[in-house]
Structures are given as structure tokens and as C-alpha cells.
């Protein structure tokens, strides 16, 4: 799975926000606020990866347990899929 193309992440102040660009802007009109973990996962899933690879990347980068990483990735993928941001 991976994040659909046509979104860019912009840093404004201390926040990271994903917004649509190009043709994607015609179908999506909002903005997506990302916390630190979500921003990391958004960048990671710009390329094709499995959930397991996301969990591994998260535990290797942040000081989190396997369980926390699993929940983090699962929530991220669920939210992204529900809103149609992943393919």
C-alpha cells in the first residue's frame, strides 16, 4: 500500500499539513494535519510498503514498543484508507 500521489506535506510553524496539489485538488478540498508519527508514516508510505514494514520502520526510528508501533500504523492506515488517501 502507499499514499496516493497528488498530495504534498507543508511545514507551517511547528505543524505538518498535507494538502492536495494539481488534479487532486479538484476532488479533495480540505487539509490533513499530521502529528510527528503520522508525518513519518506519510513519508514512509509514499513508496509501496506493507503494514509490517511500517511497524518495523517506526520501532527503528522512534523509542516505541512493538505494540505501540502496531497501533500507530494500524490507526494511520485505517484513517488514510477511510478518507481514500491510500491505494
Amino acid at each position, binding site marked *: 500500500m502507499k499514499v496516493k500521489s497528488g498530495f504534498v506535506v507543508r511545514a507551517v510553524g511547528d505543524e505538518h499539513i498535507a*494538502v*492536495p496539489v494539481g488534479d487532486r485538488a479538484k476532488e479533495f478540498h480540505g*487539509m490533513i494535519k499530521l502529528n510527528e508519527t503520522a508525518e513519518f508514516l506519510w513519508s514512509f508510505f509514499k513508496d509501496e510498503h506493507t503494514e509490517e514494514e511500517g511497524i518495523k520502520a517506526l520501532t527503528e526510528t522512534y523509542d516505541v514498543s512493538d505494540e505501540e508501533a502496531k497501533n500507530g500504523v494500524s490507526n494511520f492506515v485505517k484513517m488514510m484508507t477511510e478518507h481514500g488517501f491510500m491505494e
Partner: protein
Amino acid sequence: MTIEELLKQEGKFLGPTKGVSMLPMLKEGRDTIVVYPKKERLAPYDVALYKRGEDYILHRVISVTDWGYIIRGDNCYYDEKIKEDRVIGVLGEYFKGDKHVLLTDKEYIKYSKRIVKNYPIRKFKVKIKGFIKSVIKKVFFKKRQNKTK
């Protein structure tokens, strides 16, 4: 969620631009605007977000009046009178492609002053261009008419 709701809830709105009215500063499909809620009266050169019917418009304040603002797009050749209460936000920064532009940047300030100052020259050039085009059209049309006769 509407832009007004996002401004109220998030304190800002980030999004793409549409149209050509703020060229060359903002280009559709490439740039991202960062708009903040209007907290005080705007000043000349500020870029105001307001609504025209169902559309959101982002144009530059040319002058401030008792009742609101005279506003114009950087690539437009007409002014609009916009009442104070119609303005819902103000551009705070933007991304020209990946380049982050703050409205306090020297280059940006220079640009905004230049685009307003040069307006009469630009308008004159457009009028001349239009006049030449119409003359060419008339001559061409006459020649074609003569040929068909």
C-alpha cells in the same frame, strides 16, 4: 468542512489556488496558500480572502476605505469594492512550488509594491494590445470578405 470552519477550528487554512487572477504570484496546480483568520483591519498590499457567491476569492487590497476595501487581483484589470464584513481571512504565507514564501520576505514586499505601482502601465499595455488585435481582425476580415466577393 468549509474554509470558514477550518479558519475557526484550526486557526488557519492551507490549500491550493484556482484560476489566474493572482498570476504571476500564485499559479493553479502548483502553489499552496496559507490563510489566517482576519483579526484586524487589513492594510494596502495585504491579500484578502473573501466570498463572491459560493466562490472564495483571494485578491490584493489596493486601498482601505471607511466601509471596507478596494481590492484587485494581481492579474486583473478591474477593481472590486468589498465591505469589511465580507473579508474572512488574510494570506499569511504561501508555497511557490516547494519554496516557502513569508509575506515579510524582502523580495515579496518588493513584488507586491511593484505590481500595484505598475498597474496603470500594465492596463495601458493591455488596452493597446487589445486595440492592435481588433485592428488586425478588422483588416483580416475585410480582406477575406473582398476575396469571397
